């Protein structure tokens, strides 16, 4: 049972990744009421962009800076030229559109980078291991955990403690009123969507060296991120934190304790939440 701390930290690292991804998803949903099926496709693009930046320059810090910015631009374009057009048609069309975009992005990725796994290598101190709690542990996984904590804190501060956050929250509540107060609501929504895309791109860059970069990575993690949202509650940042932790650890210890059932465990959790509290742990009752 000396493995327990290792598995705990593994779970924590995966939970951090899940949080980075689902926080963006839940942010966009909470603010714009749009469930973005292309979110995981943005994440995949982040991973692939990062692969290209790393093969060209070899600088991980550069890719962690550039790729989210690229995704931010793509996100802004998607909102401006696609999502805004169908907004008046209602939610069904928004869902269909993001679903279609995810499909196209996956096909484009296959076209550009090929339909096979790529391995992303990083150098420097991130590739080392440290002594921690009496075990050797890779620095990179600890780095992921730190990233998630920092991003989570910054998000909380921006949304609940700044003027920008107030405008965004107000725009969700009553966007006509906010618009009447002289604020460009369209621009606010575009920015929120772009930030969401940047967050998923960031998660993708981080995921590259940890998981395999391949065209199926989006579909794979999308389901996990959805389970996080169902368990945590729609649009709740706190719920996303807690649910990510539960699912990360469940996956990690599931492999250790019940290898055969490990994949089904998270679905059982989701089904249980749906039966007992359909709105999720932190979700508001409908």
């Amino acid at each position, binding site marked *: 049972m000396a493995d327990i701390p290792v598995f705990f930290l593994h779970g924590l690292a995966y939970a951090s990744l899940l949080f980075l991804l689902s926080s963006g998803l839940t942010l966009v*949903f909470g603010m714009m009421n749009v*469930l973005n099926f292309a979110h995981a496709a943005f994440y995949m693009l982040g991973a692939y962009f990062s692969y290209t930046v790393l093969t060209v320059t070899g600088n991980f810090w550069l890719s962690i800076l550039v790729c989210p910015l690229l995704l931010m631009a793509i996100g802004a374009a998607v909102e401006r030229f696609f999502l805004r057009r169908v907004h008046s048609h209602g939610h069904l*069309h928004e*869902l269909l559109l993001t679903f279609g975009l995810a499909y196209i992005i996956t096909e*484009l990725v296959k076209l550009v980078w090929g339909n096979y796994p790529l391995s992303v290598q990083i150098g420097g101190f991130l590739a080392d291991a440290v002594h921690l709690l009496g075990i050797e542990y890779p620095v990179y996984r600890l780095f992921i955990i730190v990233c998630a904590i920092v991003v989570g804190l910054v998000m909380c501060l921006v949304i609940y403690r700044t003027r920008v956050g107030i405008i965004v929250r107000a725009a969700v509540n009553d966007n006509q009123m906010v618009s009447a107060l002289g604020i460009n609501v369209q621009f606010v929504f575009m920015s929120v969507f772009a930030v969401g895309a940047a967050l998923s791109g960031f998660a993708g860059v981080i995921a590259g060296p940890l998981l395999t970069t391949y065209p199926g990575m989006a579909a794979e993690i999308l*389901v996990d991120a959805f389970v996080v949202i169902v368990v945590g509650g729609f649009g709740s940042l706190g719920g996303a934190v807690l649910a990510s932790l539960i699912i990360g650890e469940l996956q990690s210890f599931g492999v250790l304790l019940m290898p055969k059932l490990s994949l089904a465990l998270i*679905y059982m959790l989701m089904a249980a939440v749906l039966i007992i509290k359909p709105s999720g742990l932190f979700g508001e009752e409908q």
Partner: protein
Amino acid sequence: MVQHRYANLGLYAILFLLLAVVVPLWFPPYQVNLVTEVVIFALYAVSYNLLLGYSGLLSFGHAMFFGTGAYTTAVVLGKIPGIPLFGAIGISLVFTTLVGFVVGSLLLRHKGSYFALLTLAFNALFYVIATKWHTITGGDDGLSVFRPELNLGLVRLDMADITTFYFFTLVCVGALILFCWYFTRTAMGKTVLLMRENEERMKFLGYNTNITRLILFTFTGALAGLAGSFYALFFEYTSITAISIDMTTTVLLMTFVGGTGSFGGPILGALVFTYLQDFLSDITDRWPLIMGAIFIVMVLYVPAGLSGIITAIKERVIRGGKHGHRMPSEGRGL
């Protein structure tokens, strides 16, 4: 007006039947195969449109029923030697209906985006089960299926022959599609339609909308399962593709491209999609990209689909675009 519409329908039906019977006589086996595929996917798409078009429920998990039907048929035919064809299809139908009921009672606790998300997640669960439960599903290798002969008492039909199988599929699936059409005319079908337009009012009038929705969900799941059964019999093989998200994407594209606003739209969609796929996959390996692009363009600019275009043209040409009759479900496109 009503009489006129039914007369039209009769004409279409006769034309369609003539065409359907002529196919195996004049066309090579390859075309017979394609048309059989169209017929099977037409049922799948019609069942999907009962959810999407008629009740406004967007599901990204229709493949779980299609796949369950396909796998159950394959497993039953494999494990119970000597079972008659209709026995296998029947067992598969009962099982898929049960699955639809259980899954539906869990998923229908939510609506809209949340429902869409849950259907996708549950489809992923079914996919995981199909890939991991090796002893039953064969995992990644899939299961091969053989078509038992059909014993009608007086005659025995050899299903190995594609022409015979085509006629068998045409009769069975055609009857099911007609039943779906009949369903949309029943009180239940109309309730579904009205629920989409104004659920609050239907509740106020004393309709139990939750149960109606569950029945509809189970019904469409069972139909998709039947389409899956025929799919497994047709390809004589069931693989994880049948239960994957790709199969949901397929039905979504067919239904949306054909048009969600009319009953015939998805059938047209199945026809166009199958032939377009056949044509494009000869030219390029990247045909899904073109399909995806077509889908996005349609979502952006032609939300009523091909059948919407046809209706618009018909109204403009015949009625001068003034007092065109519209199908009850046509108003909002979705």
